[in-house]
């Protein structure tokens, strides 16, 4: 097991290095640069001024030299300074990661609270009214885009109840009530969509497991139906569900840009989008590297969880 984990970590590091080089190269192919994107529309700089501004940011140096400088900093834990705010990228990223993590965890909890009971119920009572209602919910969740739901939510909340989530993010450990009032609605909107996917996966996976011979055997032995489902079926049915949840969680940590914009809760997604629009190379590189690290870590955790869910799975 330890060898497997060590090997996966080494693979992960290789992936991160490849990602770092790819993103460093790709952002420089985009048209425009940070100097141009920061100009006010009324400004009329001469080409010489633009050249000087690029020199100040080090954008005129050879590509490989720029990469070497940046990657050496990354190895030391320094992601560089943002080209727009001039603040350390790590500092900018950490603040947004905190918000994104809050939103991701809350959305995931909501999604699981909805998806697992409904998914199990829909599978156990296949083709009953409850199953149809659950499936209808899943189709609705998949069909309604979250940006639309978010816009409708803030519009009607503000018109009917004169209420909008308060401005300015407060971590849950500082002000739990404020944190909840800020994140509950966006988490519900994101959670509803995630729940739809997880619910469908739970239902279909459980249905498949319930048709397996060992479930028939368990029933034949006289076990109660609840025990058959909870003890024998659910754990095995969860392997694909955990995979999906792991992927969803990685995506959530990557940010939910539109919902962040609409609810004024700028997380990592908004940070990255702004950075791309402003051609803030160091910020883009830092944020993408962070996403890549999250996905590598989540994949490892999901893979490790398989052996806990199904003892037949062993890593060497």
């Amino acid at each position: 097991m330890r060898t497997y984990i060590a090997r996966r970590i080494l693979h992960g590091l290789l992936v991160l290095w490849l990602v770092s080089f790819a993103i460093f190269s790709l952002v420089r192919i985009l048209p425009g640069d940070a100097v141009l994107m920061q100009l006010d529309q009324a400004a009329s700089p001469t080409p010489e001024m633009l050249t000087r501004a690029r020199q100040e940011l080090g954008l005129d140096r050879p590509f490989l030299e720029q990469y070497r400088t940046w990657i050496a900093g990354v190895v030391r834990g320094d992601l560089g300074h943002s080209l727009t705010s001039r603040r350390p990228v790590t500092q900018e990223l950490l603040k947004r990661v905190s918000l994104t993590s809050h939103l991701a965890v809350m959305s995931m909890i909501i999604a699981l609270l909805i998806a697992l009971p409904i998914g199990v119920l829909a599978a156990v009572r296949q083709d009953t009214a409850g199953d149809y209602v659950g499936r209808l919910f899943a189709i609705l969740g998949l069909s309604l885009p979250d940006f639309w739901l978010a816009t409708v939510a803030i519009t009607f909340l503000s018109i009917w109840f004169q209420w909008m989530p308060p401005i300015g993010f407060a971590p849950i450990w500082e002000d739990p009530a404020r944190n909840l009032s800020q994140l509950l609605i966006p988490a519900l909107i994101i959670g509803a969509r995630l729940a739809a996917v997880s619910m469908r996966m739970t239902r279909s996976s459980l249905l498949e497991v319930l048709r397996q011979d060992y479930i028939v055997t368990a029933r034949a032995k006289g076990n109660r139906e609840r025990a058959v489902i909870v003890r024998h079926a659910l754990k095995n049915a969860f392997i694909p569900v955990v995979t999906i949840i792991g992927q969803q969680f990685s995506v959530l940590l990557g940010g939910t840009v539109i919902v962040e914009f609409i609810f004024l809760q700028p997380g990592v997604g908004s940070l990255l989008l702004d950075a791309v629009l402003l051609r803030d190379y160091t910020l883009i590189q830092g944020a993408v590297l962070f996403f890549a690290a999250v996905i590598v870590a989540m994949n490892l955790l999901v893979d490790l969880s398989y052996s806990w869910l199904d003892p037949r799975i062993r890593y060497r």
Partner: protein
Amino acid sequence: MKPSLSSLIVVSLFLSISSATAEDKTSTPFAYTAPAFIKELDTRYPAQPPVPPSPPRYGGVLHFPATVRAFDPTVGYRPELALVWDTLTEWEATWYFPEVQRTPVIRKTLATSWEMVNPSTWIFKLRQGVKFHNRPPVNGREMTAEDVKYSYELLKDKAQYSTRAALVKAIHVVDKYTVKFELTLADPKFYLNVVDSLSPVIVPREAVEAPGGLAENPIGTGAFMLKDFVPGEGALLVRNPEYYLKDKDGRALPYVDAVRLIFTKDPATDMALFRTKQLDVMRLSTLDTLYAVIKTVPDLQLYRVPSYGWGDYGVSMAVDKAPFNDLRVRQALSMAINRDIVAEVINRGDAALYGPFPWALAGYTKRADYSYASLGPNYQYNPKKARELLAAAGYPNGFDMDLEWAEFQGWTFNEFVQLVARFFGDVGVRVKLKQLETSTWLNRVAGVQPFADTLAAASPIGAGPSFVDWVYLRYHSAFPRTVNRAGVGDSKLDDLLSTWRQDSGEKRPALQRAIWDHLRANVYRITTIVPPHYRLTQVYVHAGANPYCWFPGYCSYEAKTTWMTDKAPNRKFEKFAQ
């Protein structure tokens, strides 16, 4: 929803207007083809709003939307930075509305007087006793001539201040409160080039050189001090208790305790925040959104101000190559556009015609003057004449051209380019629409990259009512494409502009009108319409002495002089997130 609705409007307008002859349209003065809502706005919210009561009430925290990525004037320019950092002088905001005030008035902030030694040498006297914010490492020390010299030398070569500061060759400290400017080019009106909006702000050397620079040490002489900046979310600025400006009755400014800037990105969010009184001031860009807000917040205050020139819809042409180097082709394309329909599609008819540059700079000071008659035949819808001109230019069967465009927040270019393509198609010019990625489009708008044939874009703008910014730099052939973005090389125009530049002031209005006439005759850029600006304030907000300053935060004086009644929400201001 919106594109399909707009398409329906376009189709129905074409059907209804196609029966009218071109001659009929050319003789009709431009008028709002307004629905009942626009008429209601005209009566309910008069152009000159009521004067705020006196005395003002001190206290309160003002909320308005903004976008600031760095509180550091050495990195980039944002109008909101004027809350923290002052320029030598600033514009009195009423110049935005030429019916009220034709001549721009300058408020003396850090400079109290100026004198022209000769057109290339100017002396400015500084206000005594102005102190930087009382924070380390500057600790409230007095601002002096050395700071002005340092700031101009630091900022004059930065791209964002190029429009104004590049005119300065050298600065000398005469004494503690006097600086002398030597200019690169004689300018008998140089004092108009140190006013706020893109002019260098005055920064203390200690803060710039401290670790983290101004981003970590945002210290200026402004009315507010930055207390909390949360990138992506917003900023909290608190009142500078030692601010030097007083109101007209000698009371200390600013009136509010703090300003909270909220970095919003979505119009629906802005509207929801305004409805729930989490925003006190906001600006809208379309009549549709204005209608949606007024319906749900009936007691709001609206200042509906004709735009000075920002936010117009136009088409840039590659005037240095065929077929656009032929005046007849440019005239034909301009005549092919029915600007009434553009106004209807872009903003339900609530828009004004727009010419080569702001009306006020050409001496037109009444809204009634913003007409087809003042613009002349090149701006009047006349497809028959357009076809004749194309035939005369050697294109009896029209030609093929690309029209590049992009989505850009605040504009409706999608509908605009479709309309233009249809109008051009009607006179035989076959348009291929090419949507660009926004950054590529911005590069082409800024003259950094060339465009193929034509480009849908707003006109190059100026800062403040400066003719230098709006016209001189934009059309003089001495400047590169990043400045003279249309690439105009017209010796007669150069002569007019140079004569204007060297005139001491008496002949400038006539010269500006002559330049206007030259530009509208030569159609170096096709301009169409410009929607008005809608500034909304909550009923408990009095927007100080300058209600015409529609752009929240653009005129720093607005934030300094705004006050809030006791009906305003009670807000804390220890940190941004409260």
